[in-house]
């Protein structure tokens, strides 16, 4: 009696693939439609950014940090600024900190909008993407007016921010938030509560809480597993203790705790929380200077420091070693996407090939952030 002969098949997904969010390659070993394993192959976007820092000096490295994670560049700006300030013991003026938080939280909304929009698009729903991008463009308009660029902001400086808010910007920002909150509801009605969409995401790529901790997941990916860990709350930095906000965690109400739907909904809820923070920050904005006195020839004393920032993709670490000269001796960035990439190999076992796209999209991986 002859049985049907089956054979394991090796597939390459990427490096150029529309749904890998950048140049990213997966080597998929599949048995029919079911994956045995998907091995991520990273390194296509390595630009030696950490090495560049050793050559361009402290002030000159700020525009490079925009390129570490171009979707939420305000956080990389802030991380670098905070690391240098900690090294040299500079205190940022209060208004400067508020400007940083305002810019960063707007950037978080923009980043999550891109994430939820492309997630729907990867799964096959094209329309929500245009809705999300429309809102993101409006935020980009605001940020462009604030700092002059839409993507590579270079807004923050060591010791504060480069520009104060332009006249009338605060009213515009508040008007935008008034417009944004109902839009989020509309977006939920459009796609988040769609039965087909939920069925497609629920129970896909389930991460257990202890697995998430062991694999070093951070940010919304970690919180979706039910672990309440947010640097803004747990190791407060900047002026975050001034604001009241919730840290949304996964509920598992659509399927299992820690599935793709939970990660999606955590991002949606975080946008609402960011909107809350922004309203408080714009209301409480103190007067004064936005930039501390920092010498143009910036030479921090020899030493090392580690800074943690809660970026849109989670806990971002900046480690800087100074030897007392005008150039850092060593810079290292720890990003959330790299950790998220590490867990895909484990999660892909037994998953359908079509669900791999869902998995990558739900982990919100930004390819240049993996390699730096």
């Amino acid at each position, binding site marked *: 009696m002859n049985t049907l002969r089956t054979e394991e098949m090796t597939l390459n997904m990427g490096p150029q693939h529309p749904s890998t969010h950048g140049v990213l390659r997966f080597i998929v070993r599949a048995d029919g439609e079911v994956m045995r394993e998907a091995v991520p192959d990273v390194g296509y976007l390595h630009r030696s950014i950490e090495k560049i820092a050793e050559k*361009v*000096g402290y*002030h*000159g*490295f*700020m*525009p*490079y940090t*925009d390129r570490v994670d171009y979707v939420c560049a305000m956080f990389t700006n802030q991380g670098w600024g905070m690391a240098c300030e900690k090294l040299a013991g500079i205190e940022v003026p209060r*208004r400067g900190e508020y400007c940083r938080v305002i810019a960063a939280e707007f950037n978080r909304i923009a980043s999550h909008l891109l994430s939820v929009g492309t997630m729907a698009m990867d799964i096959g729903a094209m*329309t929500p993407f245009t809705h999300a991008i*429309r809102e993101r463009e409006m935020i980009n308009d605001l940020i*462009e*007016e*604030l*700092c*002059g*660029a839409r993507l*590579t902001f*270079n807004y923050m*400086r060591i*010791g*504060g*921010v*480069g*520009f*104060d*808010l*332009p*006249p*009338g*910007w*605060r009213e515009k920002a508040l008007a935008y938030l008034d417009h944004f909150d109902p839009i989020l509801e*509309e977006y939920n*009605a*459009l*796609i988040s*509560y*769609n*039965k*087909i969409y939920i069925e497609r995401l629920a129970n896909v790529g389930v991460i257990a809480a202890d697995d998430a901790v062991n694999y070093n997941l951070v940010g919304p990916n970690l919180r979706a597993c039910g672990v309440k860990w947010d640097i803004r709350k747990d190791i407060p930095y900047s002026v975050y203790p001034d604001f009241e906000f919730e840290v949304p965690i996964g509920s598992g109400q659509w399927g299992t705790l820690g599935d793709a739907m939970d990660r999606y909904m955590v991002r949606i809820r975080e946008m609402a929380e960011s909107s809350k923070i922004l309203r408080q920050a714009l209301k409480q*904005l*103190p*007067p*004064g*200077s*936005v*930039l*501390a*006195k*920092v010498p*143009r020839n910036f030479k921090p004393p020899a030493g090392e420091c580690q800074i943690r920032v809660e970026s849109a993709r989670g806990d971002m670490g900046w480690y800087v070693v100074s030897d007392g000269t005008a150039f850092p001796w060593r810079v290292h960035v720890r990003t959330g996407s790299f950790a998220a990439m590490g867990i895909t190999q484990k999660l892909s076992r037994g998953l359908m090939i079509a669900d791999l796209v869902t998995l990558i999209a739900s982990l919100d991986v930004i390819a240049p952030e993996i390699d730096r």
Partner: protein
Amino acid sequence: MGAIGSYVENIKDAVTTIFEGMAVTASHFVRKPYTVQYPDRTEVRVQDTLPFRYRGILEVDLEICTGCLACERACPIDCIVIAVEKDPATRGMIISQFDIDIAKCMFCGLCSEPCPTGSIHHTTEFEGADFSLESLIRRFVKEPIHAYKAKKGPETDPRLAPILSRGMHYLDQWAQPGGDKPAAGTEES
């Protein structure tokens, strides 16, 4: 509820939620369109609608350039090349070369911050497509020119005064380090 019951329930859920989504899409038929058709269907040039701080292609007002090389030092990628030499006759500075490689420039704005007169500044121009990399190098010095010397008191030369006032207005947009007063033209609260 049996298997058939949940089957029907699922179909009902799917249909109603799809209709909710469709309602959102349909509501956009009666809203104002958000998109604009670039470049030929806009009422004003896009360049004119951009905010003042927009970081477009760099431009240099050579008339008010002091030849201090602050921008060259600030540039992280060395896309600015300036050559200055001393004029033996007047002991002033002569700028004989001021090149900016727009192909290299990453529009970070770090060069325009330390400029004492606002000579080097970003424009709102962004359409930089060209046929060769060579033509993207902007050479601002046509023939060697005397560097600008800042005067005590206001500028009296009627030709330079408007250029300088534009430059200083540009500089006012930056937050001055350590200045308790916010930069001019920014929000007071």
